[in-house]
């Protein structure tokens, strides 16, 4: 099976989406599949060509980060360019990942993708959801072991069975809302001033910490 990959991250190659793609591809290739090419939807000047590639692909993976509770604009642009077409039960995997923990943020776009797969007459193998994905690309592999193992399995299951395991998908996504422990953890981090450490570190790095509460349009 030949897989065409569509990276819908506005960050292109230097994205968390790319990390997930690489690991999924490894699992896919391990079982004898071929990854033909990755198309970067951020290069939206090529959207017509990319839409054609999607329509002609033998199998496809479309992955994107959650942007304001749904797909990034470049992905919607791509979807509109593909338009109405009969996918003839083309096997497809969708993946959406969000910076925030908690699967709730992706629930709505997952519903959309399910409807889209019916509209396009696709054989939907599964929708992978990964909350808490921000910073994935910055972490060493040793910190991403569980994610790597899961993405490998998704890739290999896709070529072996044409379907991703529902329990595995559910486990990978985790609960929709923060658990009691997570809530406690965030409240504690807030209390000791660590919850916004990442933002403060970067604000200081860019010399913008003093301006962090700027409201320039007022």
């Amino acid at each position, binding site marked *: 099976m030949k897989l065409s990959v569509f990276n819908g991250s506005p960050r292109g190659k230097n994205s968390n989406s790319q990390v997930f793609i690489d690991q999924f591809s490894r699992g896919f290739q391990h079982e004898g599949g071929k990854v033909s090419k990755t198309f970067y939807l951020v290069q939206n000047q090529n959207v017509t060509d990319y839409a054609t590639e999607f329509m002609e692909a033998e199998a496809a993976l479309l992955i994107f*980060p959650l942007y304001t509770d749904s797909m990034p604009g470049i992905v919607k642009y791509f979807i509109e360019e593909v338009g109405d077409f009969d996918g003839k039960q083309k096997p497809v995997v969708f993946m959406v990942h969000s910076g925030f923990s908690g699967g709730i943020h992706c629930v709505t776009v997952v519903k959309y993708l399910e409807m889209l797969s019916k509209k396009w007459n696709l054989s939907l193998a599964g929708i992978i959801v990964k909350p808490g994905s921000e910073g994935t690309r910055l972490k060493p592999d040793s910190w991403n072991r569980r994610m790597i193992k899961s993405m490998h399995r998704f890739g290999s299951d896709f070529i072996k069975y044409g379907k991703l395991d529902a329990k595995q998908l559910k486990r990978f996504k985790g609960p929709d809302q923060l658990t009691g422990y997570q809530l406690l953890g965030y409240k504690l981090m*807030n209390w000791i001033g660590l919850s916004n450490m990442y933002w403060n570190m970067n604000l200081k790095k860019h010399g913008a910490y003093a301006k962090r509460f700027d409201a320039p349009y007022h």
Partner: protein
Amino acid sequence: MSKKITFINGNPENGSLELDKFHEDLLAELKREPYELNYIELVNEEIKFCIGCWDCWWKTPGLCRHDDSMNKILRSIINSDLLVFSSPVIMGFYSALLKKCHDRLIPLVHPYIEIVNKELHHKKRYPEYPLLGVIIDPDGSGKNEIEVIRTVFSRLALNFKSEVRFFHTTDSVTIKDLKNEIISI
């Protein structure tokens, strides 16, 4: 002081003619009212896609690195009492043109995180945000697709610590009723 409305028309080029007519009729009614109305046709604006750089959060807080029409649009939005979005449904969702604009709203919120209803959300950057109104031309789409769109805008309202005051499809509301709804806000 007269109320301010920012009306963002997300109908793309060669989009819905019905929605164009709906806008025309609605604007004719609204222009008779004592509102400051800023009507923005996204198709006539220069707006780049968000690239996820987060300059608006950690380099130039509140300001996007792109110098395009979103500067004036964001200024208009945050100084409005009501923000109305309109779009046709295209491929089961609102237009890519409107989505592009929606993505570029993030400078209006702060990167700092808080817990709301057991979910993580970003804090406000501004003390107040406009109420939201949404007008959708369903163009034959089903109620599940409309429901998905409604939910996305209710999530925007959650992030704006605001509310969606109205959500209508063009086939479910008259111009007169919509005008009365807007002026009662």
